[in-house]
């Protein structure tokens, strides 16, 4: 690349990383949700041969470093004849990893549905399928949406790791530009602002989803925040009351 160029010249190239970052984020999240659901169901299944593998997958992905998992999928699997494209490897690891964490959210969500609901739908003779999709899941959903919103932001940040396995996302492009410009600080500063803007966008989206779900089940929305003030009585922090 040309040394006389400035950051502005590279901006279009950098911005093309946004769709890639969002693509990885959305695809990984789309994988994480069903994975989490299956793991949660497997974990609470009556059969040990279902419970055990689910527990194994959860512990495996939660227990080791996500970057090691990513490198393993990218560098080690080809040795065993499994040559995944970088994007597939990235989405697979991100989705399975986050899915393992989110399985806990599903479990908590299902646990929050009162026992009477299950008993009532059993008494009414609903099929297991109907019981799950029309009784349990809709009632568990409002409890699960805020953690899902959080997970979306986590996934956005998490997606930056795929730059290390040659996927041309925001971070990857920032690295390329930084190397050719020698103006690393500015480049990464700009990228950080872009990531933050995306995070704000996603959290606004999550908040809307939360409000929509809460409105449907008639719960007052509590809102979704990246940070908040500490609420303690004013006199407790030495303020004059």
């Amino acid at each position, binding site marked *: 690349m040309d040394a006389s160029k400035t950051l502005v010249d590279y901006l279009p190239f950098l911005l093309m990383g946004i769709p890639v970052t969002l693509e990885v984020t959305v695809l990984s999240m789309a994988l994480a949700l069903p994975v989490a659901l299956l793991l949660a169901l497997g974990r609470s299944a009556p059969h040990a041969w279902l419970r055990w593998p689910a527990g194994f997958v959860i512990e495996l992905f939660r227990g080791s470093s996500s970057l090691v998992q990513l490198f393993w999928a990218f560098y080690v699997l080809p040795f065993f004849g499994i040559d995944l494209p970088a994007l597939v490897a990235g989405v697979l690891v991100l989705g399975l990893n986050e899915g393992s964490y989110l399985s806990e959210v599903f479990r908590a969500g299902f646990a929050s549905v009162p026992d009477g609901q299950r008993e009532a739908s059993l008494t009414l003779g609903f099929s297991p399928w109907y019981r799950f999709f029309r009784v349990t899941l809709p009632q568990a959903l409002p409890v699960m949406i805020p953690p899902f919103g959080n997970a979306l932001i986590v996934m956005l940040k998490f997606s930056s790791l795929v730059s290390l396995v040659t996927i041309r996302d925001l971070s990857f492009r920032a690295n390329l530009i930084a190397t050719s410009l020698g103006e690393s600080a500015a480049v990464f500063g700009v990228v950080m602002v872009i990531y933050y803007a995306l*995070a704000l966008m996603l959290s606004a989206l999550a908040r809307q989803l939360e409000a929509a779900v809460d409105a449907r089940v008639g719960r007052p929305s509590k809102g979704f925040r990246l940070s908040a003030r500490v609420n303690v009585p004013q006199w407790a922090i030495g303020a004059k009351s």
Partner: protein
Amino acid sequence: MNAIGWNWSFALSTLPALLAGFRLTVLATLLGSALAFALGLALTLLRMTRHAPLTLIVNAFVSFVRGTPLLVQLYVLFYVLPKWGVSTSAFVTGVVGLGVYYSASTSEVYRAGIEGVAPGQWEAALTLGLPIRRVWSGVILPQAMRTVLPVLGNQVIAMFKETSLLSTITVMEMLAQATNIGSIQYRYVEPLTLAGALYFVISYVSAKGLRRLEVGHVNA
């Protein structure tokens, strides 16, 4: 050397380098956690002041740190610190990066812990006329600690696994050692698997130990 499958003698030969990296990994975790806990506490205290602009600034900082990837934050620190004339080793930069990144979530943990103390406790302490200092040290903080400590423990474990990101800023921790061996010998199976196994064993055992500690605490 057999090209496919697992080679034990090669695996053993990678161990010294991996363990050298492991030492740095543990050191980075401990120092990073200490920094995160201290900085997180400072952030929480600043957020509690009645000084609105200060609260606003701290909130913006926490939100920004939580809304951007650790990887990019590490890059920024790695390239910006030298520009400001602060020439430190990559390791110190990494520890600072980890500490700052985790201080934001630690501050949220402290906040949740403090807010989780039942309002009746505040009212009772107020009614009894306890001095503010005593309310904090004798009533609120001990109760907040009970909910905060396990979460902090989990954060240390999370940080332990995320120290692998320091490999991207040339810190020769465990993952960097593993990929280094891999690229020299063009054999990634053993070093990466061993590194993964080490991460797994340590964090699995600590997570189980933490849970046991937690249960013991509740029973006590």
